């Protein structure tokens, strides 16, 4: 009997030691990824870390299904964006800009004429300042061979980014003979847009030379921005 008690005590002591030893074992956290925290450990099929269920909850995993988060309700459009700066350039009044923001892409045929008028208005500003009759200085068919009607139609009725899944992305690349196959971070979309508006058939109509206004470029580049980063592709906040 005494032997048995001593034996049990020994076993208990061993178990206690083993338990304490296990307490001292810990995972070493030395994965320094420059503060980038990848959330790929939520697929191991067990509840670990700070998960509140199997592979869900906690700081890094998706919330558990029964988390009670409410996604109900109806949401109404307040803003919309397709190609860069379309509303900035062609929305000439606060009213028209606000209307644009709550319109659908497929329902803008009424805007084509307005956009065409705006194209001419930009030219009128310079006709007046250069003391040329406004009717003598109009939008000129651009480098894509689009007249004012086609250009205003493309900008108003088809205002989405066209993005090609099986081709290189560019907003406009004359060398590759490509236009509107997406918009990269590095594309100088404003210079391209200005050239399409003010460049005329050769792209240099109002380029600041020969006493013309400089309207085909804003003379601003991307500066020290880095567009070569991996996902999420954007630089950290300044």
């Amino acid at each position: 009997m005494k032997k048995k008690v001593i034996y049990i005590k020994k076993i208990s002591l061993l178990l206690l030691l083993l338990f304490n030893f296990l307490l001292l074992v810990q995972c070493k956290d030395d994965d320094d990824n420059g503060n980038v925290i990848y959330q790929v450990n939520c697929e191991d099929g067990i509840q670990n870390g700070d998960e509140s269920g199997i592979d869900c909850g906690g700081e890094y995993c998706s919330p558990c299904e029964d988390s009670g988060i409410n996604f109900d309700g109806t949401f109404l459009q307040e803003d919309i964006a397709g190609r860069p700066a379309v509303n900035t350039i062609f929305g000439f009044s606060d009213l028209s800009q606000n209307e644009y923001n709550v319109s659908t892409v497929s329902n803008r045929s009424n805007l084509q004429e307005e956009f065409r008028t705006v194209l001419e208005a930009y030219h009128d500003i310079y006709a007046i300042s250069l003391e040329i009759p406004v009717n003598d200085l109009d939008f000129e068919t651009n480098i894509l061979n689009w007249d004012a009607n086609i250009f205003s139609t493309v900008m108003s009725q088809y205002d989405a980014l066209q993005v090609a899944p099986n081709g290189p992305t560019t907003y406009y690349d004359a060398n590759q003979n490509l236009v509107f196959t997406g918009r990269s971070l590095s594309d100088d979309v404003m210079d391209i847009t200005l050239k399409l508006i003010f460049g005329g058939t050769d792209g240099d109509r109002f380029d600041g030379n020969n006493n013309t206004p400089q309207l085909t470029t804003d003379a601003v580049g991307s500066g020290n921005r880095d567009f070569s980063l991996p996902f999420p592709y954007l630089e950290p906040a300044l």
Partner: protein
Amino acid sequence: MKKTKLFTVIGTLSLLLLCMTLISSDHFDGTNIEGTTSDIADFYAFEGENPESTVFIATIQGNLNPGGITDNANFDEDVLIEFNIDNTGDFVEDLVIQAIKRGDSVHFFGPVIPNQTGLESQIITSTTHNVVQISTSSDTYITNENGMSFFAGPRRDPFYFDMNRFIDIKLGNAAPSGFFSTEESTDFFNELNTLAIVIEIPNSLLGDAPTHILESQGYINSLPQAYNVWVSSKRKQ
């Protein structure tokens, strides 16, 4: 003395007005949403590092000065950001990816066929659901699931433009000279941040791309097939 005071008041008011115009100019949007949590600054769509995938970036709430203004900016739980994909060339969305903030994260649903198109949306919860914790200025969180990647948080604004000079041009105040020279021009966005939502998604999940709209309309020949994509912000009613 009185006159000096009047000039001071007028001067201050003018300066204030100028500052308000500059601060809230965004990418020069309508006043109804300018500077609100639903104000979309910009939209990008391009081939990913993996050429079999496409990246969508929406920048929301632009013109955030570094520091406290950026740190305090956040997504709105009442504002749904919706990425729209048209697979047929009619400029009506055939697939959507929906993003909305809940707690410290942004939840993503889709790509999924929307249950209605146009100005109104409901969140479709019975589809692929992913979550990413909202990043901060110092910590970046990325979710990688099923070939898709997600990010939400403040970033440096990638957009560059001499916005102030453009406003002058638009208002007729820069005629006849136009834009400035390289030495005189200023990139308005150079030192500004924005809130960004970034999604990278395998093309296999985006369906077929229609004939490029410029080709189908006869405006340009020999363009690759292309989705029509846009982003919208929608507020809970």
